[in-house]
């Protein structure tokens, strides 16, 4: 596997979209390629951080308003 292929595969892996039969090839490549390993780690870290930071809870007023919309329909 080339670094180019590894990049394409690692994005799909992080998205949960890489077919399981390709996992081993990707992991084998990263075992041997510190650059791709680091790139993978950073990309995954950005995704996790973004997901953690961008979680919202609907304000109470909105929860009430939506419940009312559904109740009165």
């Amino acid at each position, binding site marked *: 596997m080339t670094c*180019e292929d590894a*990049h*394409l595969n690692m*994005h799909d892996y992080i*998205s949960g979209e890489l077919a399981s039969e390709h996992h081993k090839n990707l992991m084998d490549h990263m075992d041997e390629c510190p650059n791709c390993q*680091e*790139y993978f780690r950073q*990309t995954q870290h950005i995704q996790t951080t973004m997901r953690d930071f961008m979680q*919202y809870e*609907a304000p109470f007023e909105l929860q009430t308003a939506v419940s009312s919309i559904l109740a009165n329909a």
Partner: protein
Amino acid sequence: MKSKRRKSFEQEVLCHLDRLYGYAMHLCRNNEDASDLVQDTYLNALKSEKQYSLGTNAGAWLFTIMRNTFLNKMRKMSRKPTGMAGEWIEQMTREDIPELIKHGPDPGVKCLDNLLKDDISRAIDNLPEEFRDAVVLCDVQGFSYSDIAKILDIPIGTVRSRIHRGRFILRHLLADWEKVAMGGG
């Protein structure tokens, strides 16, 4: 008295409220407009209730309604949601993915370990809209490529390419700011 179907429908759509509010905040950037958009989304969902089959994918269905509701609002206000794409980002959006990969990886960038919420928000705001939507729906909301294709009404291959490219631009934006913050060039 509510029918069993209506009760099930309400349960299935209500459990997505927080996620919808999060996506509305991403689209509108303020609580007031986001709250209005969420309520309009639920009103439109009720109007289209018959089109929804219970037990299927309520999340993707509601997000599609929210996006269409938002775009209709923007059209009425003659506003176009855009990212703040500079020349460098414009170049990134035009190049082929294999060309982009040649720019990286950059193992020298270690500073991405200490990301702050403001950095992430600023980087996402700087992504051109088409990339921002795909990345947020995938990385924040956790939708599959197939769901994102339905929500954005684009082919699945385009979803994949926008996510790859969007993450690439995001990473480089964050890395560049950190380099400047650390006194680099």
